[in-house]
């Protein structure tokens, strides 16, 4: 078989020969090892830099801009080649094996660097690593569908179903996001679909909004579960560091009781709400 420098032919998802673009560069915010929050087992999370959304509660504001940036002594992000990322990922392969963990591509928005994301995931599949992606789904369906075959799990954020509110709090229309979720529901493949909703007091914790979220999630028949995550303020220090205003000043993390109330509401629509 013919091989090219830093690339290898192999069978693609549909049996066709594809070439992995190992020379491609992307902007990586950081690579976190032994994470226990972004999928099963121990995971290496590749945070890509750059996101088309600007959610006001975003806990990683340093992941929003597409270019590497400097804040004081801290440098956020660097340009990396696919093969450099893979070399880093490979280091924990034994932990993946034992813990049924793997690789999670997160962001920023991984789909904003679709070719880079795809090449990383193709490599992971080549080495039999379990893969997951955390995404807003704010991307074209074409891009998503070309990446889904390389994923074991896709975590999609569904922050708000109300269109106006989504525009107000996240800076973009959610029409495409909802459409992509519906397409994904009908897509082929064995990947798991998990929807995650951050519960932000005053934004989406009203019964009305939760019911909308629940009802929409209920229409996704292949959904594994919907996970509600309590809003937290761990990122506020980073806003200061970057000299950016934090718009949700004064909002408090929801209590355990509040979270239970929200879950109970969503559970009326989707039994598997965690």
């Amino acid at each position, binding site marked *: 078989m013919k091989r090219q420098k830093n690339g290898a032919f192999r069978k693609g998802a549909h049996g066709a020969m594809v070439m992995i673009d190992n020379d491609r560069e992307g902007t990586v915010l950081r690579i976190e090892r032994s994470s226990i929050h972004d999928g099963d087992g121990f995971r290496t999370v590749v945070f890509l830099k750059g996101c088309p959304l600007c959610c006001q509660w975003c806990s990683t504001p340093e992941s929003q801009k597409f270019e590497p940036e400097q804040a004081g002594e801290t440098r956020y992000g660097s340009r990396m080649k696919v093969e450099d990322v893979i070399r880093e990922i490979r280091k924990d392969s034994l932990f993946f094996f034992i813990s049924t963990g793997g690789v999670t591509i997160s962001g920023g928005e991984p789909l904003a660097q679709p070719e880079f994301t795809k090449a990383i995931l193709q490599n992971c599949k080549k080495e039999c690593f379990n893969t997951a992606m955390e995404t807003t789904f704010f991307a074209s369906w074409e891009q998503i569908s070309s990446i889904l075959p390389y994923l074991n799990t896709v975590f999609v954020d569904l922050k708000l179903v109300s269109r106006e509110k989504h525009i107000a709090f996240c800076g973009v229309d959610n029409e495409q996001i909802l459409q992509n979720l519906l397409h994904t529901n009908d897509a082929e493949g064995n990947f798991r679909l998990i929807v995650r909703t951050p519960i932000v007091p005053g934004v989406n914790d009203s019964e009305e909004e939760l019911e909308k979220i629940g009802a929409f999630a209920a229409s996704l028949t292949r959904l594994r579960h919907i996970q509600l995550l309590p809003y937290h303020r761990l990122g506020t220090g980073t806003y200061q560091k970057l000299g950016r205003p934090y718009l949700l000043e004064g909002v408090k993390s929801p209590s*355990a009781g509040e979270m239970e109330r929200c879950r109970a509401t969503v559970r009326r629509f989707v039994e598997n709400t965690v």
Partner: protein
Amino acid sequence: MEKQYMKRIEALREQYLNTRVDMDVYNAKYLTEGFKETEGQPWIIQKATGFYRQCEKKNIYIQEHELLVGGPGFKPRCGILCADSSAGIIAAELDTISTRPFDPFYLSEEGKKVYQEEVEDYWKNKCLLDRWRLLAPKDMETLRNNGAIFIDRKAVRGYGETTPSWNRILQKGILGIRKEAEEHLAALDDAVPGDLEKMFFYKAEMIACDGIMLLAKRHAALAEEQAAACTDEARRAELLKIAAVCRNVPANPAQSFHEACQSILFYEFAIFMEQNASSYNLGRLDQYLYPYYQADKAAGLLDDEGAQELFDCMWIKIAEMSLFQDEITAQYAAGYCITVQTSCGGIDQYGNDATNELSYMMIQATMDVKFKEPNLAVTYSLSKNPDALLRKAVEAIGMGLTMPAVYSNDVGLRMMQNKGVPLSEAWDWNPCGCVETNLAGRMKQYTDIADINLGAMVEFALNDGVSRITGERVSVSTGDPKNFKTFTDFFNAVKAHIDYAVDVITSGNQLLDYLSMNYRTVPALSLGFPHCMEVGKDYSQPGATKYSCGGGVITVGQADIVNSLAAVKYLIYDEKKLTMEQLCTALAADFKGYEDVQAMCLAAPKYGNDDERADFCVGEVFTHIIDQFEKYDTKFGKMTCGMLPVSGNTPIGQWVGALPSGRNALTPLTDGIGATGGTDVNGPTALLKSVSRIPHARFTQGTQLNMKVEPELLRGNDGLAHGMNLLKTLCMLDVYHAQFNVVDRETLLDAQQYPEKHRDLLIRVAGYTAFFVELGKETQDEIIGRTEIGSWDGKGCCG
């Protein structure tokens, strides 16, 4: 629901915590009396007679609530002065020992008088420590006096770090062992060369047996006396039971689980009275005690709660033993630590899973008692032991107990093989002391004849063999570092200093062996080693035990030497950010005025991050060290090494100037085989990967990894799985040992209040790792809050 037996355990705990730690000089007094009355006789007879007098005369006690009794001192929680080892050691400390900062021992005025009038003078130039000082080679003194090695520990106290054959004690009984000695003695002919020495030995064994049995009988009598005066019927029955148990064991084979526990304790206390040595391990208790548990249960004499209660009582009795050390030695291993290790799990002689009900009870005992002794471990066989055992271990770790330690059974087994033990016996290995390896009743070794200061080895290479602290020439000359043209030149200079220190330490070891053979006979300890009985030699003699595994040396400052080598390579030879001259000038000034150089040093690649630029030298440098030691033979086999600094990394650091790692002069070196505090920013998996570069199995005295983990990692059911997965992977990576210190809520609150104490505390925040004390108050609160939510969730899970 509180278990019934926990009432007693709580009461015993309370009693323990309310007991002051005292200095016992009475054992020394009785020992001295025995020596005086046998003046001129063979040393071993003198020692045995002295030991007998200790057993005969020592004050004994039975405390409220106790089911298991005895103890080495005149009261519970005592440090014992072992006069023949180091009688003079407390002479200078008589007025300060009660109040000194590390491990104070209360010494009464009466005690002082006893020491001064009845102990001190007799042992001048006679105890082992005095002889050691008289004979110490000059090069050794120079290295020691400049802190490049620490080598007096084994002259101060005797050799522990061993595991007697508990099966022998339990199954034969002391009387049975005495009979063996008697029979051997009868078969000897003093006209045959060599038999005379054997006769001395067997006679000493019989005297030691008589002493131990007498001590047990005295306890039986005391229990009967207390029973007669006891008005509480339940307690009276307990006391009578104690009396009956002490009448039977350890003289006779144990007849019940209760007797087996008491028999073990009596012998444990006896050998500790003989030597004040650390780490007389209990070994694989789940294996030794299982037949007694099974028989008692089948006969309806014992239920699981009863067995658990006895285990818990035994744990408290072990915790009562306190290791006496002089002030300086205590700094190297503070905490009264007797480090009596016991382990569960592992495999049996057929290679099958050895886990049984008692394995779980041992872990439960540590969860109940919550003391740091005995030092509990699981020798985890990845392929054979059940997940349930590992899960139980992680549950205990999750409580923040730091115990049990978890060992890779396979690596331990390979260490045994490296010590010359065949596979037919290596399966039965047990962890010893801190993290050493041992084989019950068959192996003699010194764990830590010396500590070698690896930070100093780097310093000497960069300063031509001269100490930056004292300005004295300490090691060989390796020339001006500016002339090192390549990194290899520098690395070779470091190796040259290591080689010199190894050579000097080995000569110290030969001296210690000579002194031990002549002045450190241990007739009571020898009873637990069947080979001693067979060949008629005391434990202290070459060829006495089945396996002799040399003098062990502890390397201190693993991360420091790696980080320093890495920084020099990276900054000077690879990236050329600094010249050797710039570096050396900054180091000489302890970075004062050269903060930019220090910043570069600190930013250089660090061990613990799975970063090739730092870890490249790990395998090479440690292989070099062990290769070097293994070149040397001793009367007791090849020299061995371990990486278990206990707390020696702190005092040893006071002898090291600034290092290329960015570490300031006089500050502690890094403990164990972990990363330097605050430099491992890639999480636990990366740390374990770096650690796996060490050739663990060749460091047969063990390698110690203390891992800080965040409570979040071990929280809830997922947390148990994470902990288990980490430990399983550790085994697959061929890492030998890990102990988890969970960073708890209290630590975080303390760090918020006293940030200067917790500067290197790393914590995960929203996908990245940061220094906790550098986070804003709000973020800190949020993180502390997470630990709270965790406990709430945890309750929710259990319904």
